[in-house]
């Protein structure tokens, strides 16, 4: 079978990944802001017995790479052999609504002399704005084939697909002789020959930006949006959570009626159903939160938020460039830390890597919502606002303040201030594409369920084993878990955590919780299920409300704001910094802050009560 290797290149936010997904059937993350793709991604499709391997490259404004992600794009475009991919064809994806910026990169790529074509993406948006592009004239002016595409539409890439397979099999390499004309002049000439622009292309954008980028109203709108988002997490999730809880309880009871009493029933009821069931209940809240985040990503609002926060971020020692990596960290710190590759200044990059674990990743949500549900009354404040939602908003704000605080302290240690001003491309506003939104939500659900069925199940079963064996000696009257391996370990470590109010069950749940934060929830459910005399599954929230004091709950919440309870995140810090010393510093300061703030919160709460 003939194979064609194609690399998708272009400016950031030109729709390369959307086109890649459309061509290959992949489901890579897309969003309406620059810098989503920081690593190359590969896919393929077969059409008429021809295999086409497609490589999606990080966006770049030019081939003069200034950040690690642009470096990858540059090296593959110029023909580096390090990546095992030698493109036969460069497909330069350009945003049809922003040709003035994107054509410069097309000219730069053309100068390489490699076979290439231009995919004129977002043609639908250009049409709506009244931008009239004469494809034939543009093709003539550029000297390369130009194909219109709409990567977000169902058949928007069919023409490109057919062209790749049928028309462009033997596209010759072109003369790389550089044009004497300056790139700016060339772009101006090409635009005047082939594109007619309306007078006001972005009137609506400008009108919206007048409010959304206002230094006062803009910030107020940003905080209102975030506040409403967390209100919705609590207001809408309850019926779904009750449904999942009832289903798991029914499953547990049914299993109990089928299997005889014994070790297997204990594993299923006290381990699998108690542990995993408790974690599964938080799926609706995670999906509601991500519905908002993904919708905001799609509209193009998030880069505006970066612009609004740039001054505050710069004062704390970060820059607006850190915003997108930090925002990615709200899903998971790992892609967030990897997204720092788009930050050019090494000092800024390191500062962002160090503070990224402080952002509230989705794995914290089960811990937060469990404890808030157990200890914060479900009351209305001012008649409208849910108190639990307000506390959750407060915890997220606490995370943001910690990011700024730690970055500010780091700036004190390293006074060599970065001089990179924020240059940010503000994309056009657009309505979220339902398909992308649903794909994003499905991916989040899949990631969560895979974690539940993978690492969380594995560790819950192991914790159940350690909490059940060895069996207590005959005549022992206390809870069996006290004499188990886990019970002994918990009691051994408990004095270390006693000053911050943690009992031995919490300490025990923190150990497997190092693999993933949600495991602490399933771990607590398993430990308490084995500690109680009743068989079967009961609501963990209710148990905690009886067993813990409010001071302990606040202390655990504070611990989870800071503690790096995720081995994968630590491994990613090591990989991205390539330094054990910096990784050690990150782990030490995060655990140190967690202990210190938990101590302060616990002791203050005890003193006040």
């Amino acid at each position, binding site marked *: 079978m003939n194979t064609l290797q194609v690399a998708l290149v272009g400016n950031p936010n030109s729709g390369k990944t959307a086109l890649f997904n459309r061509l290959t059937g992949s489901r*890579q*993350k897309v969003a309406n802001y620059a810098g989503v793709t*920081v*690593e*190359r*991604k*590969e896919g393929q499709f077969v059409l008429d017995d021809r295999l086409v391997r497609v490589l999606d490259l990080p966006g770049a404004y030019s081939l003069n790479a200034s950040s690690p992600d642009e470096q990858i794009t540059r090296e593959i475009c110029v023909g580096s052999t390090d990546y095992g991919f030698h493109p036969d064809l460069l497909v330069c994806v350009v945003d049809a609504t922003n040709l003035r910026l994107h054509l410069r990169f097309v000219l730069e790529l053309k100068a390489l002399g490699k076979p290439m074509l231009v995919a004129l993406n977002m043609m639908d948006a250009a049409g709506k704005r009244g931008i009239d592009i004469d494809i034939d004239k543009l093709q003539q002016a550029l000297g390369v084939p130009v194909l219109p595409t709409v990567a977000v539409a169902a058949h928007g890439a069919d023409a490109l697909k057919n062209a790749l397979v049928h028309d462009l099999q033997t596209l010759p390499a072109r003369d790389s002789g550089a044009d004497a004309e300056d790139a700016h002049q060339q772009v101006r000439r090409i635009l005047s020959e082939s594109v007619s622009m309306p007078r006001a292309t972005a009137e609506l954008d400008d009108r919206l930006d007048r409010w959304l980028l206002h230094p006062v109203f803009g910030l107020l709108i940003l905080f209102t949006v975030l506040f409403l988002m967390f209100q919705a997490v609590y207001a809408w999730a309850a019926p779904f959570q009750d449904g999942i809880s009832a289903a798991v309880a029914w499953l547990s009871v049914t299993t109990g009626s089928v*299997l*005889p009493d*014994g*070790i*297997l029933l204990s*594993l299923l009821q006290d381990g699998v159903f108690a542990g995993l069931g408790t974690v599964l209940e938080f799926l609706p809240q995670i999906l509601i939160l991500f519905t908002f985040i993904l919708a905001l990503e799609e509209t193009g609002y998030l880069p505006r938020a970066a612009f609004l926060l740039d001054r505050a971020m710069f004062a704390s020692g970060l820059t607006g460039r850190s915003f997108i990596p930090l925002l990615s960290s709200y*899903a*998971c710190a*790992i*892609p967030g830390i*990897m997204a720092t590759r788009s930050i050019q200044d090494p000092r800024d990059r390191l500062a962002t890597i160090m503070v990224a674990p402080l952002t509230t990743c989705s794995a914290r949500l089960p811990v937060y919502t469990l404890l808030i549900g157990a200890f914060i009354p479900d009351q209305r404040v001012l008649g409208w606002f849910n108190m639990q939602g307000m506390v959750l908003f407060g915890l997220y704000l606490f995370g943001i303040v910690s990011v700024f605080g730690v970055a500010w302290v780091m700036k004190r240690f390293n006074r060599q201030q970065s001089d990179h001003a924020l240059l940010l491309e503000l994309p056009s506003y657009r309505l979220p594409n339902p398909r992308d939104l649903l794909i994003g939500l499905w*991916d989040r659900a*899949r*990631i969560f369920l*895979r*974690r539940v069925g*993978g*690492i969380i*199940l*594995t*560790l819950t*079963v*192991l914790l159940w*084993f350690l909490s059940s064996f060895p069996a207590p000696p005959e005549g022992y009257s206390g809870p069996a878990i006290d004499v188990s391996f886990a019970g002994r370990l918990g009691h051994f470590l408990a004095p270390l955590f006693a000053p911050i109010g943690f009992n031995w069950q919490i300490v025990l749940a923190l150990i497997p919780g190092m*693999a993933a934060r949600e495991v602490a929830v399933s771990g607590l459910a398993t430990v308490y299920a084995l500690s109680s005399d009743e068989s079967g599954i009961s609501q963990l929230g209710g148990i905690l409300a009886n067993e813990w004091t409010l001071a302990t709950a606040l202390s655990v919440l504070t611990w989870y704001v800071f503690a790096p309870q995720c*081995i*994968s995140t630590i*491994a*990613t810090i090591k*990989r991205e910094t390539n330094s054990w010393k910096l990784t050690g510093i990150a782990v030490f300061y995060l655990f140190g802050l967690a202990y210190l703030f938990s101590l302060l919160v616990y002791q203050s709460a005890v003193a006040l009560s």
Partner: protein
Amino acid sequence: MSGLWQHFVVYAVLLWCLWRLACKYAPNASWRWRAKISYFFESRHAGIFKRVGRALRPAVSIPAGCAKHCRSCNTCA
């Protein structure tokens, strides 16, 4: 289900969990162990052992990185 069977099922589940944990946190060591076990079975004469060995043969290891699906955060999935 007798007590013996229950213990058998529980210990099988435990072994499986330990194996998964090893694959996640010690991928190189677990890959080598799997390769050794696979080789042990494949080098036997009986066909059934050969088939078991082939089934156990580990996939070629893939270096980590988003482009190579390291699966540490699953965002590449």
